[in-house]
């Protein structure tokens, strides 16, 4: 891997939700590593635990019902899960910012854009020093200009309802980047927008993070967006990371049956019909399947998949896959090419 320092490392993260009827074992040993300046994608179906993982990083999971029985999340070498609330406040905002899927829900309807931006900037002071109101205002204006919004002064006085969906998401991006975070978590930033607006917002986001060299975790279930926006991709299924590879490698050589199913399910502009997709659905987290959680939906399920959880096997350059199909390959084959599924 590259020589840049580790920015974020998640180790064996488990998250449970206690509900009537038992425990939802949602995250089942999630691991993730990212370096400074990297843009990492996180893909999977709805209900795979993508958002839960990100909420755990920011420690905004509602606890209870959620609980973290096991796991560590290191941000620049320090475990977020063990931080005091004061330390945590330092990390949120200046360290990690988040953009949510639905900008309408993310913005408070009863406060003006300006009030909300000011609050964000005010609560992440520069090197421990409080900023003056003037500085805060200037920074808010600058942030809105950066996200290509015209007339920021007027915009700061407007309320979210007066803005279009695309503008609201730009405001959210501006807000998230206003404090100059090192890591930006973008949770489906374009999903609630029309395709032409989504394209604009994502292009803007890409330009900004490249300019500022911000590290990004992009959560989405649209594979096309991951392909255009990220360097490396984690594929998540039912609370497990099933595959990780450089974006190019993943798209040209997907290995895990789940990844392959996802890729084939995407309708192509080149035509040729639509594949049936993946049979079945996400498991019930009250009683997740034993062994590999994907085995009830897997076309290649074997005896061993029913009882044992597959370890991560490294195939080729930094291409890891958690699937018993590749167990033998680990020894016999050095690179990922050449084996048929």
């Amino acid at each position, binding site marked *: 891997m590259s020589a840049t320092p580790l920015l974020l490392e998640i180790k064996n993260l488990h998250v449970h939700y206690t509900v009537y009827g038992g425990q939802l074992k949602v995250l089942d040993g999630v691991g993730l590593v990212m370096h400074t300046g990297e843009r990492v994608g996180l893909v999977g*179906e*709805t209900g795979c635990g993508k958002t839960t993982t990100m909420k755990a990083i920011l420690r905004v999971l509602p606890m209870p019902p959620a609980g973290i029985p096991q796991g560590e999340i290191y941000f620049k070498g320090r475990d977020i899960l063990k931080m005091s609330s004061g330390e945590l406040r330092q990390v949120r905002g200046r360290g990690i910012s988040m953009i949510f899927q639905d900008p309408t829900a993310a913005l408070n309807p009863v406060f003006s854009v300006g009030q909300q931006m000011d609050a964000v900037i005010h609560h992440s002071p520069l090197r421990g020093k409080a900023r003056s109101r003037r500085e805060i205002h200037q920074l808010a204006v600058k942030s809105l200009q950066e996200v290509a919004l015209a007339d920021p002064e007027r915009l700061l006085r407007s309320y979210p309802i007066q803005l*279009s969906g*695309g*503008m609201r998401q730009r405001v959210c991006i501006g807000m998230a980047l206003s404090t100059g975070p090192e890591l930006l978590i973008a949770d489906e930033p374009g999903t609630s927008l*029309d*395709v*032409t*607006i*989504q*394209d*604009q917002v*994502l*292009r803007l986001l890409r330009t900004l993070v490249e300019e500022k060299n911000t590290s990004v975790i992009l959560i989405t*279930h*649209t*594979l*096309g*967006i991951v*392909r*255009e926006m990220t360097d490396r991709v984690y594929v998540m299924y039912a609370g497990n990371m099933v595959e990780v590879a450089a974006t190019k490698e993943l*798209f040209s050589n997907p290995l895990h049956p789940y990844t392959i*199913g*996802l*890729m084939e*399910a*995407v*309708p*192509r*502009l*080149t*035509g*040729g*019909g*639509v*594949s*049936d*997709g*993946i*049979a079945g*659905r996400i498991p019930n987290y009250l009683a997740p399947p034993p062994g590999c959680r994907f085995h009830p939906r897997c076309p290649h399920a074997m005896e061993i998949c029913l009882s044992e959880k597959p370890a991560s096997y490294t195939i080729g350059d930094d291409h890891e896959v958690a699937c018993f199909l590749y167990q033998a390959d680990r020894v016999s084959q050095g690179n990922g090419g050449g084996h048929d599924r």
Partner: protein
Amino acid sequence: MTADILTVTDLKKHFVIGRTGVVTQVPITVKAVDGISFAMPEGETFGLVGESGSGKSTVAYTVIGMYAPTAGTIRFRGQDLYESKKKRPLSLRKEIQIVFQDPGSSLNARRTVKQILELPLRIHRSEARRLEEIVRLLDMVELPPEYMYKYPQMLGGGEKQMVAVARALATEPSFIILDEPTSALDVSIQGKIINLLIRLQNEFHLSYLFITHDLSLMRNVASRVAIMYLGKICEIAETVEFFRNPLHPYTQMLLSSIPVVSEAEEKLKPQKIISTGEIPSPVDIPPGCSFHSRCPMKSEACTQLDPVMVEVAPGHTVRCHLSP
């Protein structure tokens, strides 16, 4: 044009959303659909694509009978759907059915699947053996018979949509409107529903009016595609021709905005145009060509004159000053 199952001519649907002026009371109207025409031959899948607010769902609701058109005609097998002011006869309702976008809200949460499927059977068909018919309907959408005793919330999103499809099929229709049938679902489930719909179409010789905002999906299901923008159609073409030679700047903008997963697809995307601006409010539609406010190729004429539909190649019509 007798072979056409549906002919829409100069359809308009305007909504009055308020009035302005204390005395004059000038109505404020939203021109949701503003003069569109198309014809669908029997057995076709006609794709209607547009962003939110383009009026594509209003077209669907006007065809199904939820709204009466402000102007224009809709003919079904030559018969004007709005000729008489009376209620649409049952025989006609039976023929035209609809599947909505979100099965979570289109299926009554307090009814079992059996009750949901029974209603259209009771109204439209006097069959004595309803239970057998329900089993047959479930079988058509590949659901096991015991599902009839389940409530919608016990089903997955894909399964719910299957029930909605079964309900539409219950009246033995010949024409089904599919209003974004898979956009509330995950991509992994989408394929199964789409393939099921295609299979049913071949089996029962159905015609589909397929509404979606997903052009990649459209490429794979529709035989012809129409693009809508602010209540008007900008371009209609056969699917293959449409993707090979998109002419309207808006079509090109849409195509260039799609996130794709392979190099081969990337090559199909128009490179010159990138997406700018936002869809204007339908209350305040720009004069002239409604797209001129976002169009990178606009000229003086576009701001004043609204272009008309021109056939540039057989079956390929465009509404743009650039395509004479």
